[in-house]
């Protein structure tokens, strides 16, 4: 059965641990053109939007689930919020768990409300993400 309100409450993950590295943080900061010294060195802090890199690994589980019949190429990001308990830093190993909070269907468009929790290996919550993604169904 393709995505429907019946999937509200479904939980995915946690994902395999993602190791935050100084090299990846530097690459990400460079892609933002941001030379803030906090993003450099062994103790680098990740830019606030880096959390989405790990959250997206949780979203990938949705595209990979044949039952939901969703395709990344047909998805538009409508809104995004992140709340931080601790900033992400080099050296952390982070796992992401996703919950489908909302499914609203209007014609070919499905609005998906998703939350993702990012935790370190001790289970400590680092950040949480809330987003709405809009999926456009292929015309029959």
């Amino acid at each position: 059965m393709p995505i429907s309100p019946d999937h509200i409450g479904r939980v995915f993950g946690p994902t395999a641990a993602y190791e935050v590295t100084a090299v990846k943080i530097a690459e990400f900061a460079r892609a933002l053109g941001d030379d803030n010294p906090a993003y450099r060195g062994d103790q680098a802090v990740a830019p606030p939007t880096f959390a989405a890199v790990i959250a997206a690994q949780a979203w990938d589980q949705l595209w990979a689930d044949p039952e939901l019949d969703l395709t990344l190429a047909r998805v538009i990001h409508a809104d995004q919020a992140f709340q931080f308990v601790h900033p992400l830093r080099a050296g952390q190993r982070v796992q992401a768990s996703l919950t489908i909070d909302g499914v609203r269907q209007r014609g070919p468009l499905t609005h998906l409300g998703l939350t993702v929790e990012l935790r370190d290996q001790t289970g400590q919550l680092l950040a949480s993400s809330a987003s709405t993604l809009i999926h456009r169904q292929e015309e029959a």
Partner: protein
Amino acid sequence: MTGIVSAPVVGPLEASAGTLLPPLRLTVSRDDLVRYAGASTDFNPIHHSDRRALALGLPGVVAHGLLTMGLALRAVTDWVGGPTAVRSYSARFVRPLVVPDDDRGAELVVQGRVAEELADRFVVVLDVTCQDQPVLGRVKVEVDRPVEGAA
């Protein structure tokens, strides 16, 4: 009119509700989208293929919403002195930032304002526009207030 107001810079130690952050102007090119796609591992083809973007009803290749957000956040992190002060941020991707395949790219203008002053935090709102049209909506960033005398 871009809504940009020139005012003396008021730092986070002296700021209060209504304080304007220094405005930020930057450009986003196709090269930037490729670099961000690689760094973020977001390879949605609407960020590199006009054909695939048009098929979804977009006017052409558009920037990743979180690239726009990440660029805009710099108006806050530069002002407050770094990224660790950021407690939360939220935005609606109200209008796609269309990035032409030319040498100029799209111009983003970011104007921040302290909307609320709390005991331990500021709530900063950002206007993020391209050609005077908002591309992000309801952008809200919560940052820790710096402690006086701390490094």
